[in-house]
């Protein structure tokens, strides 16, 4: 436990009808979703920055104060955060980049913290079939206008994503005035786990309420920083490929300290008996985190 370096979580989620992550307009009056083209088919995805936004929102919902909305101190700079990881969980977990203007002609400087939390996009296994939701906007009718029609790309399917947390870099290092106490570090990582367990994005949820919380997780506490389940959790019509997951666990047994597989069992057809519930899987991960930081 003491020599742990990272926690890797690969998860699956299932949407019945969703329009998860908006993309650039491809045609007038059609709201597009982000898609990857592979051969002649397209696969919807939610980008990493979209997941990060969802995690931040969830942390705020859970009562954590976020460090956001600070204008850059140089002209044309991107807006940034307060860049204070000592006090703000999101500056600690998600990193930041800010620039300072130099005084009286002197060169400026940059503050940065490389995010110890790495987030892959959430990519669908199921192709986009061209489904559109048709809508009519009557808002302007009373003012003498005509109803406006619009369409929204929608999709249904199983999505896969991965999150890797560099445990040895949480609560210390770049940007910190003083390292956090171990129990504070554990508290922050466990808050992140809760946010992942209850993952929910705000985009287009008023019309397409979609639940993107994990319905299947493969997680491991690792001696090295390697997202071992990245491409080895595969969902097909027949269910999840457990052979591949077992092979991965065997391949990396020297690097794995502990692992857990959890699922909402009724959502997949072939879940083995020894797979625990999603709640139990996250409880196990929380125990790893508490034990790890206790030993530090």
């Amino acid at each position, binding site marked *: 436990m003491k020599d742990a*370096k*990272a926690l890797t979580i690969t998860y699956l989620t299932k949407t019945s009808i969703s329009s998860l992550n*908006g*993309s*650039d307009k491809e045609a007038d009056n059609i709201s597009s979703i*982000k*898609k*990857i*083209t*592979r*051969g*002649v088919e397209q696969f919807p995805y939610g*980008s*990493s*920055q979209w997941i*990060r936004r969802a995690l931040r929102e969830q942390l705020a919902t859970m009562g954590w104060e976020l460090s956001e909305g600070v*204008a*850059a101190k*140089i*002209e*044309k*700079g*991107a*807006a940034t955060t307060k860049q204070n990881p000592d006090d703000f969980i999101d500056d600690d977990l998600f*990193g930041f980049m800010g620039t300072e203007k130099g005084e009286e002609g002197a*060169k*400026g*400087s*940059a503050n*940065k913290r*490389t*995010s110890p939390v*790495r*987030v*892959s*996009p959430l*990519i669908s296994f199921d192709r986009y079939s061209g489904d559109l939701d048709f809508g009519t906007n009557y808002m302007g009718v009373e003012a003498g206008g005509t109803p406006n029609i619009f369409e929204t790309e929608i999709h249904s399917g199983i999505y896969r994503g*991965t999150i*890797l947390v*560099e445990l040895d*870099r949480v609560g210390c290092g770049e940007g910190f005035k003083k390292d956090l106490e171990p129990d504070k570090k554990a508290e922050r990582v466990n808050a992140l786990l809760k946010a992942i367990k209850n993952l929910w994005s705000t985009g287009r949820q008023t019309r397409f309420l979609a639940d993107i919380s994990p319905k299947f997780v493969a997680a491991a506490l690792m*001696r*090295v*920083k*390697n*997202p*071992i389940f*990245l*491409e080895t959790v595969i969902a097909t019509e027949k269910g999840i490929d457990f052979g591949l997951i077992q092979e991965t666990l065997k391949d990396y047994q020297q690097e794995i300290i502990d692992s857990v597989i959890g699922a909402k069992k009724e959502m997949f057809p072939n879940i083995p008996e020894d797979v625990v519930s999603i709640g139990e899987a996250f409880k196990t991960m929380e125990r790893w985190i508490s034990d790890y930081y206790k030993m530090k």
Partner: protein
Amino acid sequence: MYYFFLEAYAPTASFRLPEAHTFQQTLPLPPVTTITGMMGAAVGLSLEEALEFAKANKVHFGVMGTHSGVFRDLWKYEKIKASETISAVLVREFLYDLSLILVFAAEDEKAVQYIREAFTNPKYALTAGNSDDLLKVKYISPAKEQEIQPYYRFSYTVLAGDHGSNYESDIKIEELPLLQNIYMPRVYLLPTDFEFNGNERRVRKRQLFTFVDVPVKLKKPINGLLIGDKAVGLL
């Protein structure tokens, strides 16, 4: 020459062409500075230190890889214009489903062993371009010795220099999948060294590189190593 290679996989990757801003096109494979940065992440060095390490130990790199597709990701961000915060967008190009082989080579066996050790237990999580493009290391070969030799045939790799007029196509069209995109070798002028001044960095040196896609046969060979049955040029 001593060397080792590693096999890795990334669901998404983006190797931005330097100096591209609102449309950030990706290169098909990581350039030398990105591979140097990956080595730095493994060892625990900043880019400046990693470049110095590579120079001091005369480390050479090699790269091969394929991907399943390219997509464009829309980013929304807030920027400052005339003291006002306004919303802006940029488009970044990504590779999808990248399988990568990276080669690290040097005359000094200790330097090669040191880099290899670092990749078995990297200081920072390894990524393929962006900090969120998670990279999984699937295999790390033992460090071995191999004599550098001239090779003619290359595919899905990067060669040092401009080989725009030094190749003929080596494609067996009947063996290519029907829906595969085919690119002739593309030549880019890319940074290979930077001047650092605190947190500021400026390009100090640029070199031409040829990104080879489908198989080519060079008219004049270049030196490289054989990894499995594929030749890789050293950068």
